[in-house]
């Protein structure tokens, strides 16, 4: 006895605990969902920052930097020098584990002597002694000298030939035998770490636990070589040669600044095109001189006004008059056009092409300003180039995408892939410099960093835009900073404000998330999506609310209980029809049908309620006379009559619609909407019909004369068309209000989504109406009011807040509806009010794009943000509706 009791008690305790835990965890899960959505989208708004990534203690001014993705190995490319020595070093970081590991490598670029076959690589990097002092190069190599370089490629001279070589950090995967031959401690270390430095000074990396071990090595390949360049141009010197590589290709533009006999510096431009025959592997290099209308800018100016390639085709180079020439490299004669900068901004002082040259950040000096100030402007080069090359005068001015006051930059680099420019400006005190990172789409300063240096040289960024490096001239080391900005292109401004995007004529709201090319400027404005969401929801509420509320009134107030008990469950069952079915039917069945019956649909929509009203006025249906509240047979018989009249009207109106379409719009309203022949007044008339009816009906004379009612319905359409004809003289309906007809449009989704919303609103509204106490009805009827008078003046006002809450719940459902929107809207992110146009709703956008978005990318997080927005919005809406309902219930109880 005692035993059992204890067992029962224990079980009781345990079960209670279990239920409590589970209950609480479900409640927590609900909250967790919101927390997760917030935490996933929050990184979008984190402030960008610079983080010290370490330094390389090589007193070496570099012209470029190559960094490995995993191991902190950096290779510095030399500036113009007689010897071509590359330095590689582990970046010294704050991490103590790395700090006591030091490895400096030094390689000398050599070209193998003698005749090598064309296809094999004549270049090699010879490791010189590790202890080479940078100031004291071991052996001067007379054969190969280095020139200016950018990122991964070096311009070199070897004898009379000018060549470009690329240097890359490569991975040599170890064979199984080599892996086994590794020292056991190295193997153990590699199992835990991603990279190690072995005792014999090699860097081993392992990208992930599963990938094989690889050894890091440097590789040099020849991009192109002009064997007789220096014999052809004996005055040229390697120090004065610049090379601007064509993006994605090996060839590009060679700029050579040579001293003429009269001591003037002359800039010559050569277009180098190199074609490799895929079959024979034979390389063909061709050098063409570019002829310009005026001399190109000088050597120093080329540093300040950097040339750029646009779309891999147009070459934009600075001229001496601070204008730019855009050269079409695909043209046989290298045709050029002139691009000028806007002259109302000041005197151009710097010009840095960003993002493959499609746009450039320009700096103008503001005259007579103390302290000196500049104006930064982001110029649309790509659009100007296209306009200039297509126009007659072959001249164009670059458009300003944004402009802002800024401090004059001492140095300026734009990153080739990200839309960021790093600018070095004077800091707050005289002995410090400030590095700022500007995001170029909106012109926002993303991050700023003070550096305690007075002189800074060789500002460079790596190819991924995550690291920038510079040589601290005063303290003789290269400083490396990481720029942490995974979502730099997103800010509240870019999400919600109008942005002037590259190649666009005007500032606009735009959503365009993906594209095939890397150079594409993503457009992440949420406004068109929010617009689409509300457009779809409001149009469908326009369809659903009157139907659902009127139907609820009929089934709650008029219909007998027996019929209602069939009708209500039927309608509620409709709520469970999967939305994919509705969307599919809307797209496959409804959309084509509406497309061919568009006038009939408009006519039915605008005049059916009034026709039914007229029926009610003039038809003496026997049952109507016996109508009582919820009376048994009269309501059912009236319903039969209505079905009968409805069917006839449906048929007549659809015929009439076809007739109108044939007579007024040449048989094709769609063609009319896109500019075809037709009478605009009739379309106006169609849309104005309800307004005209309501106005005429509510004029005071209607009580006086019965004929007036007849006249209203006979003449209503005529008056509507007449007014329409008058209006159409002043406004162009097609252009201003409506537009082109798309097959999957807002009208279709209004019907399909309305169909999904109707049962929800109906069910809640019916409940609200039914719960109005019967005593109120009885009182009203006893005073002699008719059924409708009771309904309209007593029941409806009492139930108003309940009805309102029903509409709110319907609104919530419409906002979140996904499949119907995906299938029936055409998913075009346009912002129009036109019911014949498509739209893109937030929910549909998530459904379409999330499966393709890369995990944790900016796009992915923005989709999470829109999901969060949807969640918050519907949750608030429903809570408000619930609150209204609760108050309504309480009031009814009090009644």
């Amino acid at each position, binding site marked *: 006895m005692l035993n059992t009791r204890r067992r029962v008690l224990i079980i009781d305790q345990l079960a209670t605990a279990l239920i409590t835990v589970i*209950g609480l965890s479900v409640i927590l899960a609900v909250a967790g969902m919101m927390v997760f959505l917030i935490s996933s989208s929050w990184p979008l708004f984190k402030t960008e920052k610079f983080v010290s990534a370490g330094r390389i203690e090589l007193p070496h001014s570099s012209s470029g930097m190559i960094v490995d993705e995993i191991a902190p190995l950096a290779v510095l490319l030399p500036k113009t020098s007689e010897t071509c020595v590359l330095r590689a070093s582990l970046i010294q970081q704050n991490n103590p584990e790395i700090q006591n590991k030091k490895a400096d490598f030094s390689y000398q670029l050599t070209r193998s002597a003698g005749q090598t076959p064309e296809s094999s690589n004549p270049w090699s990097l010879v490791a010189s002694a590790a202890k080479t002092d940078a100031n004291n190069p071991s052996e001067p190599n007379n054969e190969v000298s280095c020139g200016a370089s950018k990122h991964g490629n070096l311009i070199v001279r070897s004898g009379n030939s000018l060549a470009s070589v690329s240097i890359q950090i490569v991975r040599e995967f170890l064979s199984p035998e080599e892996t086994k031959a590794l020292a056991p401690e190295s193997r153990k270390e590699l199992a835990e770490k991603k990279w190690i430095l072995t005792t014999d000074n090699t860097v081993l990396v392992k990208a992930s636990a599963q990938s094989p071990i690889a050894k890091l090595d440097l590789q040099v390949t020849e991009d192109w070589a002009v064997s007789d360049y220096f014999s052809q141009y004996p005055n040229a010197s390697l120090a004065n040669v610049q090379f601007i590589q064509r993006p994605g290709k090996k060839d590009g533009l060679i700029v050579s600044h040579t001293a003429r006999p009269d001591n003037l510096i002359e800039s010559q431009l050569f277009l180098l095109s190199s074609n490799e025959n895929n079959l024979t592997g034979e390389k063909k290099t061709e050098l063409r001189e570019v002829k310009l209308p005026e001399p190109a800018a000088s050597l120093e100016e080329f540093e300040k006004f950097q040339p750029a390639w646009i779309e891999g085709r147009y070459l934009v180079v600075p001229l001496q008059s601070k204008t730019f020439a855009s050269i079409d490299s695909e043209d046989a004669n290298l045709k050029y056009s002139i691009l000028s900068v806007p002259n109302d901004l000041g005197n151009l002082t710097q010009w840095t092409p960003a993002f493959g040259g499609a746009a450039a950040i320009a700096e103008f000096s503001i005259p007579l300003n103390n302290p000196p100030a500049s104006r930064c402007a982001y110029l649309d080069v790509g659009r100007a180039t296209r306009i200039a090359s297509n126009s007659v005068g072959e001249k164009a001015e670059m458009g300003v995408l944004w402009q802002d006051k800024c401090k004059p930059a001492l140095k300026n680099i734009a990153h080739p892939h990200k839309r960021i420019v790093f600018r070095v400006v004077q800091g707050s005190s005289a002995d410090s410099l400030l590095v700022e990172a500007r995001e170029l789409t909106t012109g926002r300063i993303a991050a700023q960093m003070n550096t305690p240096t007075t002189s800074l040289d060789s500002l460079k960024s790596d190819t991924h835009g995550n690291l920038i490096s510079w040589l601290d001239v005063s303290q003789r080391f290269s400083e490396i900073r990481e720029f942490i900005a995974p979502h730099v292109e997103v800010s509240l401004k870019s999400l919600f404000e109008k942005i002037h995007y590259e190649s666009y004529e005007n500032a606009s709201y735009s959503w365009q998330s993906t594209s095939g090319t890397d150079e594409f400027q993503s457009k992440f404005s949420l406004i068109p999506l929010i617009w689409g969401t509300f457009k779809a929801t409001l149009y469908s509420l326009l369809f659903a609310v009157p139907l659902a509320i009127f139907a609820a009134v009929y089934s709650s107030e008029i219909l007998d209980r027996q019929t209602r008990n069939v009708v209500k469950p039927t309608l509620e069952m409709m709520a*469970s029809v999967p939305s994919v079915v509705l969307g599919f039917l809307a797209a496959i069945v409804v959309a084509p049908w509406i497309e061919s019956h568009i006038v009939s649909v408009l006519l039915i929509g605008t005049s059916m309620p009034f026709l039914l009203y007229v029926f009610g006025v003039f038809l003496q249906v026997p049952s109507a006379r016996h109508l009582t509240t919820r009376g048994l047979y009269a309501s059912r018989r009236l319903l039969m009559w209505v079905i009968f009249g409805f069917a006839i009207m449906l048929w007549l109106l659809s015929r009439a619609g076809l007739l109108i379409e044939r007579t007024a719009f040449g048989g094709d309203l769609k063609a009319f909407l896109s500019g075809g022949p037709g009478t605009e007044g009739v379309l106006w008339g169609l849309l104005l019909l309800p307004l005209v009816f309501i106005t005429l009906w509510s004029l005071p004379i209607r009580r006086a004369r019965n004929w007036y009612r007849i006249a209203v319905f006979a003449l209503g359409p005529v008056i509507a068309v007449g007014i329409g004809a008058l209006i159409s003289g002043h406004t162009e309906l097609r252009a201003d209000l409506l537009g082109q007809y798309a097959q999957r449009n807002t009208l279709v989704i209004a019907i399909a989504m309305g169909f999904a919303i109707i049962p929800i609103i109906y069910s809640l509204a019916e409940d609200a109406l039914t719960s109005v106490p019967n005593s109120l009805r009885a009182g009203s009827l006893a005073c002699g009011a008719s059924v409708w008078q009771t309904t309209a003046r007593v029941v409806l006002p009492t139930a108003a807040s309940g009805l309102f809450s029903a509409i709110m719940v319907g609104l919530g459902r419409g906002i979140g509806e996904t499949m119907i929107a995906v299938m029936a809207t055409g998913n075009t992110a346009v912002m129009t009010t036109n019911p014949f146009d498509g739209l893109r709703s937030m929910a549909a956008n998530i459904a379409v794009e999330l499966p393709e978005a890369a995990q944790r990318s900016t796009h992915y997080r923005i989709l999470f943000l829109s999901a969060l927005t949807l969640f918050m919005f519907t949750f608030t809406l429903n809570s408000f509706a619930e609150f209204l309902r609760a108050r309504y219930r309480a009031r009814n109880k009090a009644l």
Partner: protein
Amino acid sequence: MFSFGSKQSDSQGASQAPQPAVLFKTAVRIRSRAANNATEGIPWIWVCAGALVTILLLIAGLFGVILSQGLSALWPHQVIKIQSENALVLGIPMRQEEGTDPNTNVKQMRRLVYQANRDFGVNEFAFVPVERLVESERPKDVWFVERREWGPFLGRIQTSDSNGVATDVDSKTLSAMLVGGAERSKQLLHIEKGALADLNATMEDLRLEKKSIERQLEAGAIPDDEATAKSSNVESQLARVSKDHAALSTQVQELRSVDEAIKITLLADNGQTKTLPVSQILRVFQPNSLSWIERLGIFFSRLWGFVSEEPREANTEGGVFPALFGTVAMTIIMTVFVLPVGVMTAVYMREIAKQGVLVSLVRIAVNNLAGVPSIVYGVFGVGFFCYTVGASIDQLFFQEKLPNPTFGTGGILWASLTLALLTVPVVIVSTEEALSAVPRSLREASYGCGATRMQTLWNIVLPKALPGVMTGLILAMARAVGEVAPLLMTGVVKLAPALPVDSHFPFVHLERSFMHLGFHIYDLGFQSRSTELSRPMVFASTSLLVAVVLSLNFIAIKIRSQLRKRFEGRGAF
């Protein structure tokens, strides 16, 4: 409108010839009626009724379209033959539409005719002007052939004897041949899906084991000699399995060559022929010489095939079995999660937690969760379950397969969990309702007898609330069956290579992606190569889905009304 009213008065006042006085009287009556009607608000009642009628008509139209199109997709239609302007059209007449003649540029009503024979150089669809349809004939001897590949065929069937002379085949020989072919392909399928698939799975397991040994060796977790012993063991097993695999493959090859020797020739109307193995043919009939009974027989056999077969030809033919199976499996897994959790939460909120502001706030929140868009749950599911929980599971248990994700991507488990989260409010709300409807007196009686809280709950309250719980569960299932948006990102696919349940250990593969009826409709109706071709299938699938969802709802409604009756009857408690 007027004639309508006056007609009625005519019928009331017998058949008199209309005289001026009568006309006047009628006008007066109409006028007074109009005045009465308007003041009493009858017109507004008409408008209200009109709204209800519109909705009912829309519902009727919806189900009418789905049902008629869905059933007609499976019905063996008659075939017509007609000489069109430029070609002989032989096919099944489909829908009628208005179109523009490309030659004359005149609008006309025309009928779409499905000609099949995709691989015979024939346009699959042809248009015939409606007025010409009267000239059509219905040839009795045309065969309708359903094939494994290239879609249906319409035409004649021939066999060739040893001399290569082709003769039309009679239906008896044909059916015997078909039975043989079906037998052989069943045999082949049995080996391929059974023994051969088993061997493949074993080989994959061994390969992963080998990889895991290598990884452990690299990390220094096991000594070299142990690793060598282990891996040689795996190698020998692998060699043995590969041998079995090769032997079975040769057997399959032999069977296949036997099968391919027995051939049949299809002769299209345009004279082109195609010879193919008999086992490629699934069903044949002569649509124009069928009786009604035979037609019904074919209809039901097709219906069975539709729910039991795998899809063919990029889902545009065959059945929807994997999609149906995936839907059911997902719903069952979801139920396993949602039922205990939902019920326990409701019990906690109604029976255990102190009723106060906090609980009622939570109640409102849970209520509102039902109104949160389903796509939001999908976003949460993919971000939390797949990329966070799943990725950690992969890191812990499936390292050998990385970087290929096992649980770190969409799968049936994650889809079910997402839907469980989506539907748990439905279960909570209806369970709470049911619990609150259980009379207090019952509980008090139980406590009075000395029962503990759990005993009361388990023996008294829950049994009484069971129908309510069931209603909630069924409604949740109905919602889950029809929901597509959250599945788009949590593991549903167009064509799954394997079912989530099969004969390989561990039998239920929760990480696998799956097919779903709703997604099947979306994919076919929206992303298919030709909407016209996929139309029949997509309508049939829609009918199936709607039937499943509505019957679940119907059951729920029935249970609820039973429940209401029961509690109304026990008002005395």
